């Protein structure tokens, strides 16, 4: 299954949920905001949201800024 994450293609062998994806990427689920195909995912939906072939995912977080 191919996912486009932050503009780059990533290949995954097994189906996975958003929660599993964040775990695999070593990201803190409480600090990362997830958008799938332009729809913002509520943090409570990480566990039940299964990712599908071709999903475009944005993972964003706060950084320093003025």
């Amino acid at each position: 299954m191919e996912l486009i994450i932050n503009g780059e293609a990533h290949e995954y062998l097994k189906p996975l949920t958003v929660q599993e994806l964040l775990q695999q990427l070593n990201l803190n689920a409480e600090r990362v905001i997830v958008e799938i195909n332009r729809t913002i995912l509520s943090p409570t939906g990480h566990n039940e949201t299964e990712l599908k072939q071709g999903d475009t995912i944005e993972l964003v977080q706060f950084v320093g800024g003025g």
Partner: protein
Amino acid sequence: MDQLIIAGREFNSRLLVGTGKFASNQAMVAAMENSACEIVTVALRRVDLDNPEDSLLSHIDSDRYLLLPNTSGARDAEEAVRLARLARAAGCEPWIKLEVTPDPYYLLPDPIETLKAAEILVKEGFVVLPYMPADPVLARHLEEIGTATVMPLGAPIGTNRGVRTRDLIGIIIEQANVPVIVDAGLGAPSHAAEAMEMGADAVLVNTALADTPNPALMAQAFRKGTEAGREAYLAGLGTQRQQAEASSPLTGFLRND
């Protein structure tokens, strides 16, 4: 107590601080503390998957500081609205510093797209603090659609050039019914003092604090500059004159003419 009130919320500090470009998180935190600020701005960016950094938020005490996400990087209203919604999804309060800067060279705010985005975000319940050109007519339009403040620029972002838009900011202050926060371009405590003496309600500083070997000390200096300017405004500045007017008595000189 002389408090700054934005959207019904009271603040003791009239200095807002940006968190960008500091050499370390430690330097950033020291500057925040010494500035006595209560509002800090942050930006939203893609996570670097190859190099996930520790989160900025773990360094910012959310009980002490109100997090004000910006929409920096947005080139039009649509991008700004998307960033604002993402920021709100992070669970912060729905406060947003609206920035729409399509021009990468001067980073000047786009007045039309800013107004468009502000209108959408206000309707969605955001407390909108728009970064804007120092245009009194635009300030009125933004206020009319319900922005919580107006944030005219002193000079382009990061230039440290001071209140170059002084006369226009003066008109904005004269006409505004919402707090006027002078944002961008303030490079020295005297610039902050100048804006506050003019009657600005607050100032926002980032580069001037981050771009010095001693952010903590500079933050303290900006706090004093901001406070000094505010107190001078409240006291009322003396009238400017062309001719001298002696401060000492003009009688009793030690001569007989």
